[in-house]
Every structure is written in C-alpha cells, then in structure tokens.
C-alpha cells in the first residue's frame, strides 16, 4: 500500500509540475498522512514503539530555558529556568538565571568577567500562584553556596521550599509564575517570566509492580495508593537491552482510570507486535514512569521515577505479531487515499 501511495504521489507531483519541471513541487499531503497513519495503526494509541530511541516521558521533562531581551530588544538577554516542571509541598524549587548574548550562543565571556568583577548583579524573583497570589520572594546568588553550584560562573541560583500551608487540594495543582528581575551593576534592568506547577498529587506509586503475558502482550501493573478520588493517568517507558549503555527505550504505554481511595492496580499493556518490530529480545526494564492526577487542569504531576522494575525475558514467540490496525487511523488513511484517487 505504501509503495502504491508513493507511486501515486510521485505521479501527482509529476503531473503538477509538468509545465515547470525544475520547479519545486509538493507531495500531496493526504498521501503523506495516509502512509504515516498506516504505519502508526500497527499499534494501539495506548502502546507505541519508540523507533527514534527517544523516551517520550523524559522528552517532556527537558529543561526549558526561557529568554527575554531588554527594552527595545537590547542585549544581553535574561535566560531563566527551573530544575523541574513540577514541585510538591515541601519540595525545594531550584531556580536559575543568567545573562546571555543570544540564545544561539554561549554567555558572553566578557560580560561574565565584568559581572564577576563587579560581583553586584542583583537577581530577585517573585513566585505568584495563578489563583492564590504571591507565594514568596527569593534572591539569586552566584557565590557557590546553597543552591548555587559554582561561584562566579555567571549562573545565578536560588531555592524556595514550597509552603505546605499553601498546597493545592489533594489531586490538584496550581500554575506558579516566576517573575524574575535582574539589575546590572550599571543599573540596567532585565526581566523574564518563567513558571512551574505546584502539584499536590492525589495518588502515589507504592513501588509494587507485577507483570504477566496476556493475549500475547506484556501487561505490567503498578500499584497506586489513592488519597483523593478522581481520574489518574499512568505512563511508563520500557527499555530493552543490557546495561546502562546498551539499554534503549523501545516501547511506551499509558492508561487512565477513575479511582477511589485505597490501594489499587493500574495496568499498562505493551503491545506484543512492538517486541517483534523492535527486535527487542530483552531484558526489559521499566526505565521511567510517572503518575498524574488528572482531576483538573493544570494536572498534578509527580516526579519521574527511574528504573523501577525489571521484567523477565520471554521467548519472542510469546508475543503476538498481529498488527492492531487501529480503526481510527486505518479509516483516515482510506479516506485520504480515496480522495487522492478521485478525479
């Protein structure tokens, strides 16, 4: 089917650009999408192969450096970032700031030297909850003490412990904006606005896991202790291979359920065909897992737990090799291809 779509697409490109053979052309978008849908349809949406070796859970937790230029676009820019996306009550938030020439280059050495010499760049921040207002104020330091890793490196650091008294209700989260203000020794201001989630998860992973083969798929169950009733979302990435160097993310799975208080199990089904397609002979490790309280938006997130469980190696024949043929995607592909065939 993919070959036919490619031929059909090529023919359409040829026809479309026949008058101007050297002109850039466009492959019909519908056929491009149809090919991808047929590929994706091999697995259910809740269980995906990771062909690029990228862990989708860790991918979303990457440090996000934000940048803001000065008035009228003047340099240097103020760059700010946090140590994490989300923090829980009593957890220490680590905040960072530095002045940079441009986002594409490293901080200006000259600028750093100037600031190091003057030692009086002032960086402060106000932490403001979207609904609850001012939570606290911090002063950043570049003195190698406390939250600051290295004195005089141009990276100013601060920490703030999330006040338990201001915690959202169990199962909920609040957006917290970080208003950062920097003033150079010459009296020049820079400002930037960051943010993180103040999460109070309504359920937690207990650390107990179990697995079984079910209908040719690997089902890994995680026990959760639910405090607040509501909807919870669990996602985990499985690595295959030996050792820290050899292990590669090979599959991701998710599930969600409305749960009542108490200890309960959530199943994650890793579709059998993925093990064939990825030639994943094991051993298998649940390399990252995260539980989210999805009672409201913003969701209350927990930190990502790493390498929590190892699964036994199974013969490849134990895994089913049938494509799932996701009907949502197969239908979309058929419609797009029918459009392409029509005159």
């Amino acid at each position, binding site marked *: 089917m993919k070959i036919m779509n490619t031929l*059909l697409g*090529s*023919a*359409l*490109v*040829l*026809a479309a650009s*026949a008058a101007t053979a050297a002109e*850039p*052309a*466009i492959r*019909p*978008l519908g056929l491009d*999408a149809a090919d*991808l849908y047929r590929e*994706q349809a091999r697995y259910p*949406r*809740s269980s*995906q192969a990771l062909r690029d070796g*990228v862990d989708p859970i860790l991918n*979303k937790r*990457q440090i996000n*450096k*934000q*940048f*803001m*230029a*000065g*008035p*009228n*676009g003047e340099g240097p820019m*103020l760059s700010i*970032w*946090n140590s994490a996306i989300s923090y829980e009550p009593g957890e220490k938030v680590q905040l960072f700031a530095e002045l940079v020439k*441009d*986002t*594409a280059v490293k901080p200006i050495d000259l600028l750093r030297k100037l600031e190091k010499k003057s030692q009086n760049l002032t960086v402060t921040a106000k932490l403001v909850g979207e609904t609850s207002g001012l939570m606290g104020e911090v002063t950043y330091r570049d003195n190698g003490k406390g939250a600051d890793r290295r004195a005089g490196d141009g990276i100013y650091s601060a920490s703030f412990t999330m006040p338990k008294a201001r915690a959202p209700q169990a199962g909920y989260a609040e*957006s*917290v*904006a*970080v208003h950062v*203000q920097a*003033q150079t020794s010459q009296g020049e*201001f820079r*400002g*930037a*606005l960051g*943010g*993180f*989630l103040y999460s109070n998860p309504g359920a937690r992973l207990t650390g107990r896991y179990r697995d079984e083969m079910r209908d040719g798929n690997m089902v890994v169950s995680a026990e959760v202790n639910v405090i607040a009733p509501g909807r919870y*979302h669990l996602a985990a990435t499985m690595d295959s291979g030996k050792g820290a160097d050899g292990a590669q993310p090979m599959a991701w799975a998710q599930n*969600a359920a409305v749960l009542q208080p108490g200890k309960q199990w959530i199943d994650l089904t890793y579709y059998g065909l993925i093990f064939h397609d990825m030639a994943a002979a094991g051993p298998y490790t649940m390399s990252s897992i995260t539980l989210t309280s*999805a009672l409201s938006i*913003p969701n209350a997130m927990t930190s990502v737990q790493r390498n929590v469980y190892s699964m036994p190696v199974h013969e490849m024949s134990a895994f089913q090799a049938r494509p799932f043929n996701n009907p949502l995607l197969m239908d979309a592909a058929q*419609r*797009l291809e029918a*459009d392409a*065939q*029509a*005159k």
Partner: protein
Amino acid sequence: MRSMIVVRLFTFLSLLFGATAAYAAPCLIFVHGKQTDTNTYTNYTSARNYWVNGSNDFIRTATKNFATPYYVVGYNGTRRYNDAQAAGEVAREIVAATNGTADAGGHRCALTYAQGGTFWVVAHSMGGAVMDFILGNNDATDPNFNFGGAPFDTASARISLAITTGGTHRGSQGADAVCGQLNGVCNVIASFIQSCDDATYWLRSGEDVQVKNFANAPAKLVYLTGGFEAIFGSSVCLSGEDDGVVQYASIFACNGSTGSSYDNSNVCRNNAKQETSGFRNLDGAHENHDDERNDSDSDQRRQVPDGIWTCSGAPCAANTTVQSSMTTGRFVSTLY
C-alpha cells in the same frame, strides 16, 4: 485487494500519461487564534473576518475561490486553550461540521463524515494549541480525555489532518513580556498582544502552561507552517526567526527550550518535536503573524528541514526558496 490495486494502477498510469491531477477536495475547517474580546464566539461575522484583510481573503484563496467546501469555527479566544469555550467549543463545532451542520454563515461541508467526507483543520496562532489539546486527549487512556465533557474523541476521529500556521504550540515569548509586568522586559511586543487575559497567560512559554504537559501526541497529524517576516519592533523580543508574535521554536513545536534560536536552515526536524510523533514540518513563509491568516502578503516561501517541498524528486535543501510569491492561503490550496 486485487481490484484495489488495479484501480490504483490505472490511476497512476492515467496521471503519468497526462491526465489532470486532481483530488477530491476535503472540507476545510478554519480555527482562528487568540482574541481580545469574545466577538468571534458570539458573532459569525467576526469569526469570518478574522481571515480577511480588505479585499484579501485567506478562506477564499485556500478554498480555490470557494470551490472547496468550508466551515468557520468561532470560539472564545480570550479563554485558556483548554477551556470549555475554547477547545470544548472547537471540538463541538468540528463534530457539527462533520455532521453536515452549517456554520453560522450558512457554509457547510459537502459530504458528512458518514457519507465518506474528509476534513482538514486549518488553525492559526492559538488555534494550534487548541488543536494540540483536542488531538492529544482523544483516547480514554489520554490524561485529559474529553476534558469537561467535550467530544475530543469524535472530533479527532473525524479529522483527517490539521495544518497550523503561526501556531503557539510552545507558547509565545510575547505573552511572557505582556504578563511579566517587570522592569527591563522587551516591551515593544506588548502592543501586539495587549492584555494578559486568561488566553495570554496560558500562551506563555513557561512549563506550567505548556499544552504538551496536558496532552499526548496528536491523534492525527499536525502539519506546521509559519512566518519569518519580522514585525518592526516586536520581533526584536523573540528568539531566532519569528512572525512578529510567535518564535520558530513554538511555530514548529520544537522540544527543549521554548526560546531556542531557530531559522529556516536549522529549525527542529520531525523527530525533535514536543511529542515523539504527530508533528510534521511544511515550510516557512515570508509573512508576519497577521499575513499568515489574511492572505495579504504573497511572498517567498522557504524549505525547512524535513519540509514538504521536493526539488527534482528529492527533498529540497533547507532554506531553499521554493516559491517567490505565494501566500499561506494559496499554499494550503496546493496541498489538496
């Protein structure tokens, strides 16, 4: 299966030997961007005029002078992208469109979903984040499945694909400036965004509001295009190439830092997006944020890494000028 192959072969040969290449047209569903008032939600003319500038009309161009059926969505663009009057309303209107219901201007899709119709969403600016939220929460296993009772599942099932132009997939540094209220921020962009209402607050580039943190990979493909024509003043506040309001890192849904500096030669490829699948690059246009949705600037288009354009049968090199004069509206019309 054999008959299908014969039909396909016939189609292929007829095209190869000179028959006119033509597609059955999808129905185009237009989703606007952020608003400073609720007019597009309450008044069809406002929603329709979002796509118009004087005699220039994005919808007219994208639909090939209205030959292609279309539907114009109007939602509350002052609310956060995940709100019932934003994503919820858009999902409901998509379902209505695919049922053959006319929009408030009397325009309807020629074929319903049940009749075999195909439906392409064209979304601008905040419409990108709205679509990410809908398409990323369509399945019962997704974190915010059918949030607030909205029919994300049905809407996602019926959409064939989405195209975003100037999409705020990772927020806007302009929203940071407006909501920052700080000394020393890049203030010249403020007039382009105006106020820090709920929609703006949730279009910041901070992690607390990123749609990727509240959605999964889109259930249907989201194709990405956007402008690189600076707006005098505001663009100095944005990292890398931008359309005057949204930076490339957001327009092209890049993973990592929202302030990364990208241009047409190095913007993130299809395997480096905010999700591990579901986002695909189209191209870049020498248009600003308004031009992207009102068809008023027919200008250069450039290939981006993993872009849609081919040169002599192979993908054009990134940053190649692939068109010297083509609006995004016209570009959309060439995609089907």
